[in-house]
């Protein structure tokens, strides 16, 4: 690994590479945007040319970023392009009785209005197709879209959305996953149970392990709902050609799945859908499935013009996926020298109104829940529950940050009670090369012990017990 000097040395600023400031226009001729970009390619030194791997190669996209030239979706414009806005339910659980869009449609500048009943297949999702593009007729969380408008300006679209009136019949709502698990709870996706996926990892015999333990520790931990907050909100543009072929530019990190979902919701052959993922301004898991794209495509079809939709920051919070809140119960049996003999874990995930990537989050959390520790007797079980809240989905770590918070807090509590240094108790239990994981997988390239030692060295960790 090469370590380039952190500081910018004189050598790195080539002689003659003087700069001037563009805002010094008062003393300089009027500045114009650069026509030809500076050409400073990374030319590898002879002998280094084939050592591409391991080099601190400069990102080719960073020059465009620095010059403001990266084209994100909101920076694209097409002739005649319209702007879409969404009407959000604002009520967490309800049946839509009537939607009146006539006042919106009558507004000058409004070119198309869309409601859920106009969507050919009004459902999508990576595991279960339980999420509507626009709610129809059941609203399951306050951020559900209920109608969309395309207009010649964003302002007109936003005003038109305000003129849409919706009559709701309020339905019972349930926000607490523990309450939602009860048999008598309101069923958010009736007739299905609110417990929409479960997972178990079982190895050895936890009861025997606890019986053999010198001491048993228990802990309960909870985490909150978190938003991805990409700096660039979700954005997309839809346009049809004269042959009925659809092109969508979208902030989606997973275009293969997104094209399949788009084709499915619109009932189009997949070869008539082109999805282009432009440079995405931050993903973190929140942009891995379609959201507004089918609605934009249908608005565009109705209006016969390209339609752009950019989420407001409010949309981003209330109508995109979020991180699952967890309720985590841990029970661990240890010997008096700090070796873990048995661990049982129960995880309850607040799954929000729709499944999205919950099944993946549930699975990873359940597999990882006992931590990177050699434990002969493990029982982990996890359940994800529908609630009438913003849908939870993929977010950087898929449940691992939640369970790591729990198993590592729990580990420190055990270390303290036993009078063992926190670093030491981990070194006594962590995986090694060839360890069999809780799912019985023989692990390779395992360096958790090295990472503990490296971190302790770099930190200057002094053992205390």
């Amino acid at each position, binding site marked *: 690994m090469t370590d380039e000097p*952190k*500081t*910018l040395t*004189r050598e*790195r*600023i080539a*002689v003659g*590479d*003087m*700069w*001037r*400031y*563009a*805002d*010094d*226009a*008062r*003393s*300089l*001729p*009027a*500045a*114009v*945007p*650069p026509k*030809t970009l*500076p050409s400073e390619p990374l030319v590898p030194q002879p002998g280094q040319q084939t050592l591409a791997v391991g080099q*601190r190669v*400069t*990102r080719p*996209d*960073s*020059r*465009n*970023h*620095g*010059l*403001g*030239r*990266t*084209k*994100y979706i*909101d*920076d694209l414009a097409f002739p005649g392009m319209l702007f879409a806005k969404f009407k959000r339910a604002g009520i967490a659980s309800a049946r839509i009785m009537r939607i009146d869009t006539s006042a919106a449609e009558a507004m000058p500048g409004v070119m198309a209005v869309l409601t859920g009943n106009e969507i050919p297949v009004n459902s999508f999702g990576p595991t279960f197709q339980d999420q509507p593009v626009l709610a129809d007729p059941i609203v399951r969380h306050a951020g559900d879209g209920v109608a969309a408008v395309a207009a010649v300006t964003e302002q007109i679209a936003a005003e038109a959305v305000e003129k849409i009136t919706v009559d709701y019949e309020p339905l019972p709502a349930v926000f607490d996953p523990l309450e939602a698990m009860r048999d008598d709870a309101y069923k958010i996706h009736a007739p299905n149970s609110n417990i929409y996926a479960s997972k178990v990892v079982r190895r050895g015999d936890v009861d025997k392990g606890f019986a053999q333990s010198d001491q048993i520790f228990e802990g309960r931990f909870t985490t909150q709902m978190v938003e*991805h*907050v*990409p*700096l*660039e*909100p979700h954005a997309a543009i839809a346009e049809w050609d004269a042959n009925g072929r659809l092109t969508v530019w979208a902030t989606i990190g997973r275009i293969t799945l997104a094209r399949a979902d788009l084709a499915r919701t619109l009932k189009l052959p997949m070869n008539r859908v082109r999805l282009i993922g432009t*440079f*995405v*301004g*931050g*993903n*973190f898991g929140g942009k891995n499935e379609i959201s507004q794209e089918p609605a934009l495509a249908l608005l565009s079809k109705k209006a016969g013009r390209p339609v752009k939709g*950019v989420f*407001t*920051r409010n949309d981003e919070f209330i109508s995109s996926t979020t991180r699952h809140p967890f309720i985590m119960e841990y029970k661990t049996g240890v010997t008096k020298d700090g070796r873990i003999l048995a661990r049982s874990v129960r995880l309850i995930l607040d799954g929000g109104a729709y499944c999205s990537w919950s099944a993946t989050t549930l699975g990873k959390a359940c597999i990882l829940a006992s931590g990177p520790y050699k434990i002969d007797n493990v029982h982990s079980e996890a359940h994800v529950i529908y609630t009438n809240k913003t849908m939870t989905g993929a977010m950087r770590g898929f449940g691992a940050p939640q369970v790591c918070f729990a198993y590592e807090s729990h580990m420190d509590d055990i270390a303290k009670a036993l009078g063992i240094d926190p670093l030491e108790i981990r070194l006594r239990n962590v995986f090694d090369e060839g360890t069999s994981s809780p799912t019985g997988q023989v692990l390779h390239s395992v360096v958790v012990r090295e990472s503990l030692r490296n971190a302790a060295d770099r930190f200057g960790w002094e053992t205390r017990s």
Partner: protein
Amino acid sequence: MTDVTITVNGSVRSASVPPETTLLKLLRDVFQLTGTKLGCDVGDCGACTVLVDGMAVNACLMLAAQADGRQVLTIEGLAMKDRLHPLQKVFEESGALQCGFCGPGMLLSAKALLDDNPDPSSHDIRDALAGNLCRCTGYSKIVEAVQDAARAMRDPRTEDTRQLEMHGHD
């Protein structure tokens, strides 16, 4: 409609816009200067930061009419013809930007700082950039890059530039 004339990146530009038009809308939608980004539209994220008479402002919070007669610098004007601004150069070399969406605002806030304080401490930099949210980088490489750029700009070899700059700010 309101008539607005501003000097953008050294060029005098005029437009007639509805009075509620923000400076951000004027720059992006009317002047097609899309380098300035919209992240929240209420002044929380700093993605729309531009310099107005040398001061870093959130373009989403300023009306176009308030910028009438003033000098506006956007990211498109930070580089000069065939030369990158040292901040752009160092940001690029050190991988200070990831998704890049916060970049234009971040670079302009950094420029406003360095124009005012050529030798900022790490805390000065963190303070000056506190209004520019970034979700990708953890700000580490950004803060280091601003320090590196400041060091480069203080290099005696760049004296000509400093004179130019001082003259420009008379």
